[in-house]
C-alpha cells in the first residue's frame, strides 16, 4: 500500500515536472519566437536605414563632385578674368563674362545651402549696362570662398555618413547572424558577424562576453533604444573624435537632415 502510494506520488511528480518543463519550454519558445520577430523587425528597419544612408552617401558624393568641378571651373574663370581685367577697372565686362559669372552664381547656389555670404550674392542684372570687371572679380571670389567652405562641409558629411553606414551595416550583419540557423548565432560573435557584413564592422557595436573570451554584438544596447538613437549615439561618439576645433558639428542635425532629405526624395 505504502509502496503503491509512493509509486503514485513519484509518477505525479514526474508528470508535474514534465508539465512544468513543457510549460517552460513553451515559454522559452514563445520568448524565442518573440525575439526572432523583434529581430526581424529590427533587421527590416536596419536594412531600410542602410539603403537610406547609401542613397544619402551617393548624393553627398555627387554634390561633392559637382562642388569640386565648379570650384575648379571658377578658379580658372577667376584667374583669367583677373588677368584680362588688368587696367580695365572701369570697363564694362563683356556679355560672355557676365553670362558665365551668372552661371557660376546659379550653380553655386544650387550646390551650397545655408551660406549667408553666398545668399547675399545675386546674379547680375545688366539692364543695359554690364558690371565692371572689379565687380565680377569680387563676386566670383566670394562664390569661390563659399565653394571652399562647402567642400569642407561635404567632406565632413561624407565621413560621418560612412561611419553611420558602417554601423548600420554591422547592425544588419548582427541581426542576420542572429536570425541565421547557425549554432550560437544568437550571440552574434564578432567573427561570425563579419562573415555577414561586406567590408569592415564597427568595433564599437561589440562588447566582451562574461568570460572575456569573445566579442559579441551588443543586442542589449540595441534593444534599449530605437535604431535611430543607437546609430546617433555612436554618431555623436564618432563626431566627438572627429569634431572640429570649434565643435560646431551636430550629428543629430545631420541625421535630421538625412531624414528630411529622404522624405523629400520619397
Amino acid at each position: 500500500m505504502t509502496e503503491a502510494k509512493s509509486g503514485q506520488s513519484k509518477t505525479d511528480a514526474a508528470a508535474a515536472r514534465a508539465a512544468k518543463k513543457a510549460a517552460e519550454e513553451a515559454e522559452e519558445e514563445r520568448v524565442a519566437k518573440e525575439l526572432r520577430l523583434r529581430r526581424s523587425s529590427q533587421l527590416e528597419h536596419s536594412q531600410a536605414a542602410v539603403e537610406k544612408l547609401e542613397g544619402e552617401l551617393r548624393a553627398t558624393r555627387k554634390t561633392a563632385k559637382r562642388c569640386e568641378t565648379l570650384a575648379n571651373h571658377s578658379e580658372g574663370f577667376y584667374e583669367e578674368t583677373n588677368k584680362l581685367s588688368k587696367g580695365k577697372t572701369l570697363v564694362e565686362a563683356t556679355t560672355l563674362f557676365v553670362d558665365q559669372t551668372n552661371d557660376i552664381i546659379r550653380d553655386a547656389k544650387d550646390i551650397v545651402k545655408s551660406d549667408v555670404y553666398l545668399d547675399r550674392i545675386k546674379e547680375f542684372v545688366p539692364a543695359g549696362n554690364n558690371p565692371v570687371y572689379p565687380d565680377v572679380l569680387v563676386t566670383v571670389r566670394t562664390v569661390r570662398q563659399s565653394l571652399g567652405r562647402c567642400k569642407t562641409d561635404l567632406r565632413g558629411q561624407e565621413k560621418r555618413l560612412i561611419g553611420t553606414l558602417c554601423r548600420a551595416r554591422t547592425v544588419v550583419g548582427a541581426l542576420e547572424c542572429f536570425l541565421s540557423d547557425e549554432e550560437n548565432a544568437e550571440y552574434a560573435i564578432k567573427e561570425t558577424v563579419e562573415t555577414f557584413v561586406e567590408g569592415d564592422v564597427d568595433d564599437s557595436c561589440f562588447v566582451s562576453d562574461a568570460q572575456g573570451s569573445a566579442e559579441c554584438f551588443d543586442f542589449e544596447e540595441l534593444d534599449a533604444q530605437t535604431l535611430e538613437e543607437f546609430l546617433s549615439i555612436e554618431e555623436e561618439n564618432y563626431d566627438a573624435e572627429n569634431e572640429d576645433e570649434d565643435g560646431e558639428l551636430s550629428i543629430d542635425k545631420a541625421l535630421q537632415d538625412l531624414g528630411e532629405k529622404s522624405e523629400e526624395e520619397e
Partner: protein
Amino acid sequence: MSAADPNAPFIRNISQYDVDFVIPRIGVDVAVGIDPFLLYKSRDPEYRNLHATLISAFNSGIEAIRQGKRSEAGRLFDFPEVSAIGLGYTRGSKRGSGVGTYLSGLIIETLVGSPSLQERGIRHVEEMQLVSAGIGPDRISDIAANVLKRFLIQYTQRQCAIWKLPVKSGVPINHIYDSSSQDWEDSYEDLPVSPVDGSAILLVPRRLVRVLPWINYDDFIHTEFKAYLAAKRNLVKPFRRDSSSGVGSQTDAKSQAKQDVVTVTRGDIGLVERYVRSREQQAVDARPAIHYIDEDACKEAELLKDKLSGIAPGRESAAEFQQLVLEILNYLFTPELTDGKPEVRTLDGTERRDILFTNESDESFWDYVRTEHSGIIVMFEVKNTDDLDLAAINQTATYLGDRVGRLGVIVTRRAPSKSVLRKILSVWNDSAPNRKVILTLTDDQLRELLDIRCRDKSPTKWMQKHYREFRTTVQ
C-alpha cells in the same frame, strides 16, 4: 502786345521741360529745325512711315524729272516756308527765306544736272544739301515741315487737348501734302493761333529737332569729302584757292567752295552714298537738340516738387495728379521717353489713369527695356492714393502685354505695403516665360529724381538701379 518780348514763349504757364513739343516764341524762331533723320531712326512705326512718305514724295519728283515732266516736278517740289512751326535760323524774325519757287527751280536744276542722282534717287532728303549749293539745313527743315504738315496738325491738336491750350476753329492752313494723291491741298483746322498775327501755330515734337540735320554739309566736308580730297590731290588746289582767295567776302568764298563741292558730288554720287551710309551706321548718336531750353532746370524741379506737395491723395485730385505726373515724367525723361499720352479708362467700375510713353531712347537701359520687355511703349499707371491695393497690381498686370509691353510703372503717393510688394513679385513669377515687371514710384522717389535731374545727372540711371533692385529681389 507790341511791347512783348519776342523771345517770350507762346505758352506761358507751362515749362518747356514739361512738354513733348518745342514751345514756339512769340516774335522769333527757335533756332532748330526738323531733322528727317530722327524720323528715319525712330523705333515708332508711325514716324518711320512719315520718313517713308517724305522720301516717296521726293522720289516722285525725281521720277517726274527723269520722265521729262518738269511742270509735274515743279508742283511736287513746291516747298514754301512753314512759318507756323516757328523753327528756323532767321535772327530776330519768324520769316525765313523758304524754299519757294526759286529753290524749287534749284532742286530741279540740280537733279537735271545729275543723271546719276536721277538714277539712284535719294535715301534721305538731307542729301540735297550735298548736291545743291543753295540748299542748307533750314531748307531741309522746310521740306520736311511741308510734307509732314498733316501729321503736325494732328500732333498739335493732340497736344492742345492734353495741355488744354486754346484753339481756334476753322483756321485756314494751306499746302498740306496728301500722300495718296501725291498732291498739295488746303484745309481749315482747329488750331492754336499766334497772338501777334492770328496765324496758325503748329507744334513740333521735341524728339524731331536738331540744330543741324544729322546728315549735313559741314560734316560731309570734314569727313567723307576730306578723305576724297586727300585721295585726289589734284582737286585740293582749286578747292583751297577758292576758299582762301581773299577776293570778296568770306561768305562768297564759302559759297564758291560749296559750288565746287557739289560739282564733284553730282558727278560722283558714290561719295554721297558712302557718307550717308556711314551716318546711318552712327545713328545711335543722332540725338534731338535740347540746348534751346533756356529755363532754369532746378527752378522747374522745385516748382514741380511744390506742385506735388500741393495735391492731396484721393479720387478728387486724380486728374490733377495725372497731369502733374505727365509733366514730371516729361521733365525727367524727355527725349528718352516721348509723346506721353494720358489715358483714362474705366475697368470694373474703377477709374484707371495711365500715361503711355514711346520709348525712343538710345540709352542702354531703355534700349534693354525695349528688347527685354517687348515693346516701344512704357506704361505709367497713376494712382493718387496713399494705400496702393492688390487690385491695382492685378489691373496693371492684366494690362501689360503685347500692346503696351511688359514693363509698367505705378506712380503712387507712398511706398506700397509688404503684401502689395509680394503681389508684385508673384506677378513676375507667374508670368514666365514673358515676365511682367511692375515697378513703383512714390512721391519721395519722384522728388529724388527731380533733384537728380536738377543736378544734371541722369534719372535713367536711377531707373536702371531701381529696376535692378527689383530683378535681384525676385532671384
